[in-house]
């Protein structure tokens, strides 16, 4: 740990700076510029008035937990703090919580410096910055899913597995009451228990059942209401486009309008040189938009990309994003080489895979540029940071030092670019 101390101090200092930037952005971003900001706002208004949102409205299909929390924050904060800022501060808090859970999980398995650097890169990645300083239920859902996933990495003795799984199920229930994305996490978490308890099959089945049944039972009334309103359309749980005429009109009008298989393999140069959806070729490119919305503000909701300096800074950040992407890919190779050593990650990696598949399918069903956003994968923050740590851990001591330093520099660059008003 002694050799790790300078890295820990540096990572801690940068994390502090990132936190200040996050709070600054939550106050500075113009009101309701957030993804689906007005739709989320109407849900918060409904909960504040003591009723559930109308499920046929733009964001009315979302479960109510985030908005209920928002109503409490609205009631508690002084009127000098605008309501939308209070709602964003929930996302800020969820982001901090998620980064801390990731760090706590990784430091049990990796060198403290690698765990800290990997968690910091997650905390400073533009996709994470945008989602955790905007109002919306994405960040809270990701935090709750991450808390559940983290539990599957240390399940403990089989005789206490049912109790452990019940607590994990409670986290997942809260996540499912926040956003339907959490549905995707149920199977992977059950798998985590199944793999960890494979020598005691009965206990494995019981624990796996608990993490699936408990959240479904708690969230059933919400989803039953949606199914009733939508006439049984399952997509109504995931998109306002299924039941809200306004959202439907907007989604249908967005380019590209139809999907081709080529959209899933084409990566235009704008991915790095002008990482915004309006740049040539980007609106069609699924990998391009995914990459650009991970390492830049691809959907132009946060940073003023019309400003050439901002666009140049985003381009620099997108190119620099190749470094953590490359190290994470080395991490994938490391996991594939030694799968048994990384069995503790099975639920996390299964979730990352399931989320990616769900996103690709969603982008096919709803062929609109806004359906391809890396923030939909935010709940995969733990596996992403873990792969980064595996990639770092597999290098020689000299290379590790160089890469840690480069990643800290990347985090600083990301803070500077995403700090609203800094580049301009």
């Amino acid at each position, binding site marked *: 740990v002694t050799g790790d101390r300078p890295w820990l101090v540096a990572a801690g200092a940068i994390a502090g700076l990132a936190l200040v930037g996050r709070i600054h952005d939550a106050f500075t971003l113009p009101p309701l510029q957030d993804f689906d900001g007005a739709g989320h*706002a109407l849900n918060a208004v409904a909960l504040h008035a003591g009723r559930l949102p109308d499920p046929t409205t733009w964001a009315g299909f979302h479960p109510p937990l985030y908005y209920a929390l928002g109503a409490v924050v609205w009631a508690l904060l002084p009127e000098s703090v605008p*309501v939308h800022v209070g709602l964003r501060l929930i996302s800020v808090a969820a982001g901090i919580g998620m980064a801390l859970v990731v760090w706590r999980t990784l430091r049990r398995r990796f060198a403290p410096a690698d765990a800290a650097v990997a968690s910091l890169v997650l905390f400073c990645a533009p996709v994470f910055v945008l989602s955790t300083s905007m109002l919306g239920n994405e960040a809270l859902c990701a935090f709750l899913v991450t808390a559940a996933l983290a539990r599957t990495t240390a399940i403990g003795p089989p005789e206490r597995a049912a109790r452990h799984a019940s607590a994990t199920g409670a986290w997942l229930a809260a996540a499912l009451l926040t956003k339907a994305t959490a549905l995707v996490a149920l199977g992977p978490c059950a798998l985590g228990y199944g793999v960890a308890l494979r020598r005691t099959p009965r206990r494995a089945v019981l624990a796996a059942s608990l993490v699936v049944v408990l959240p479904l039972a708690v969230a059933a009334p919400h989803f039953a209401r949606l199914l009733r309103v939508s006439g049984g359309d399952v997509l109504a749980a995931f998109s306002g486009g299924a039941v809200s005429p*306004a959202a439907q009109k907007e989604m249908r009008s967005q380019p590209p309008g139809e999907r081709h298989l080529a959209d899933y393999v084409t990566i235009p140069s704008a991915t790095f040189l002008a990482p915004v959806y309006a740049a040539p070729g980007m609106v069609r490119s699924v990998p391009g938009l995914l990459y650009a919305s991970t390492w830049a503000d691809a959907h132009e909701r946060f940073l003023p990309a019309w400003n050439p300096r901002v666009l140049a800074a985003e381009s620099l950040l997108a190119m620099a994003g190749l470094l953590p992407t490359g190290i994470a890919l080395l991490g994938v190779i490391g996991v594939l080489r030694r799968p048994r050593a990384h069995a503790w990650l099975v639920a996390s990696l299964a979730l990352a895979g399931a989320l990616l598949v769900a996103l690709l399918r969603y982008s096919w069903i709803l062929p609109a540029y806004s359906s391809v956003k890396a923030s939909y994968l935010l709940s995969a923050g733990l596996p992403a940071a873990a792969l980064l740590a595996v990639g770092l851990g597999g290098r020689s001591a000299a290379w590790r030092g160089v890469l840690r330093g480069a990643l800290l520099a990347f985090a600083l660059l990301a803070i500077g670019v995403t700090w609203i008003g800094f580049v301009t």
Partner: protein
Amino acid sequence: VRRLVLGVVVLLLACGRPPLDPATVVDDYLHELGRDPIRAFSRVTPSFQTRHGLRLATDPEVRAWQHRRSRGASAAPAPERPPPTPEEERLAWLAVQGKPGYQTELARLTWQIMDVEQPDDLRALVKTRIELPRGRSFEQIFQLVRASPRAPWRIDQVEQVGVGEDELAAAFVTNPTEATRERLAAHLGVPAD
């Protein structure tokens, strides 16, 4: 400690501000426009949100508008569009307040409460004067209603008097409506759709 925290939270939730008088509601509302739109939204009646006529523009509509703007008079006229649904109006009213320039325009303005009339316990009229730089001004009259004498006042209608062409931007940001937006677009010489 947990009980104490819970008790404080419940107390804070229970002890909100007492119901505000009509003039304070209007003053707060004008402060909140563009700065705190969600709170401003909670100060108006549902029927208020079906009168302003604002609507969301879809992505292709924005691009078509930009095209018409670049072509000027030679551009084909915008196609007819159906009136907005109540949901579209609510979303648009909230979203417009985060648009670039909205807060800047509001920051130039000051206002004064000129008169308050309360014919009965359930209705009130608040007259304000919106003042622009260099001495220009116009009158903005708020009609407020409430369901019972103990219920909070809500803004139900807004009327603007004496708005000239030079005051259109100020009139729009203090009471965003489709009619004022179209007048403003015509004044600026840009397509009104």
